[in-house]
């Protein structure tokens, strides 16, 4: 039956951790990640992401990304980078209402001969309480299989949040 989301992995953070890793990508399907109410321990730090190879975050400088930064308080911006070693989203605050929520799609991760592609949409509030979000995409320019995604803060810990990986079938 088409149009289903099958849960592959989930992790809920209730006390500070340095990172969260979701793995279990083992098919050529598209995968989706939902991030709910992620908060960091330090004000003004960006949520950062890497893909995993055999469960280990790939730290090589092979990430290209571009996104539109939507902002309710001022003119929208552009975020981009090439040959960097991670994918970065907006900076967020560390107060209760300054979290980030996201829907992320993962493509070609299981392929050993294609690059891994990512599209994402996020909504968050920064340390001033301003609404922001990212709408964009990224490519990991290495033709090898990836099996998951790794989340961490640019500085400090993740203090709360629910991270769930689904397979789209």
């Amino acid at each position: 039956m088409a149009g289903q989301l099958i849960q592959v992995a989930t992790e809920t953070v209730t006390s500070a951790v340095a990172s969260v890793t979701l793995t279990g990508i083992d098919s050529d399907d598209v995968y989706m990640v939902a991030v709910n109410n992620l908060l960091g321990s330090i004000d003004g730090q960006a949520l950062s992401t890497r893909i995993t190879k055999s469960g280990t975050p790939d730290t090589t400088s092979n990430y290209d990304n571009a996104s539109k930064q939507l902002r309710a308080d001022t003119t929208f911006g552009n975020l981009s980078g090439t040959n960097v070693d991670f994918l970065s989203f907006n900076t967020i605050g560390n107060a209760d209402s300054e979290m980030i929520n996201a829907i992320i799609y993962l493509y070609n991760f299981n392929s050993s001969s294609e690059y891994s592609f990512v599209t994402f949409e996020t909504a968050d509030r920064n340390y001033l309480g301003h609404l922001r979000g990212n709408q964009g995409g990224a490519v990991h320019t290495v033709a090898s299989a990836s099996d998951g995604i790794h989340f961490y803060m640019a500085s400090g810990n993740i203090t709360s949040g629910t991270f769930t990986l689904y397979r789209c079938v």
Partner: protein
Amino acid sequence: MSNLRLINETTATSVSSLTINNIFSSDFDIYQLTIGNDNTTNNVMKMRLVNSSGSAISSSSYDYANLQLDATTSFSEDKNQNFTEFRGLYEALEGNYATVYLFNPYSSSSYSFMLQQSQSFYTTGYPRGGKGIGVLKKTDSATGINIFQTGSAFSYLNIRTYGLRVDS
């Protein structure tokens, strides 16, 4: 079983406002809404969350930002802070379709966040898409939504609400 669970499907015709209540609960934190509509004229679709008594939350507590993607003119920004509803879900005479994610609407401890993508087609051959975000800066527990417009009616409006289940 799919973790994307259909909670409700509602279809209405010739209405300017539609409230769908009792669709959010403690069973889910994230919801996906698909919205399709035809309209009697080009207008702006507006959305509010609804509390358990069926009243739309209309306080000036909504922030939103939408990138308006026009095929025939420059892209533009549609944004507001401390507004009375979410906007950015455009509608048009020849149809409009949108997918909306709502985070935490039922929570009484977290703000409600919104993601949306929409595509409309105006009668003059004028496609307009939208990619947007929003937040309701209140911790009221919401149990439904109110979709409405001012000055005209939806000739057709279909809304499907799904819950995104997390199994621990």
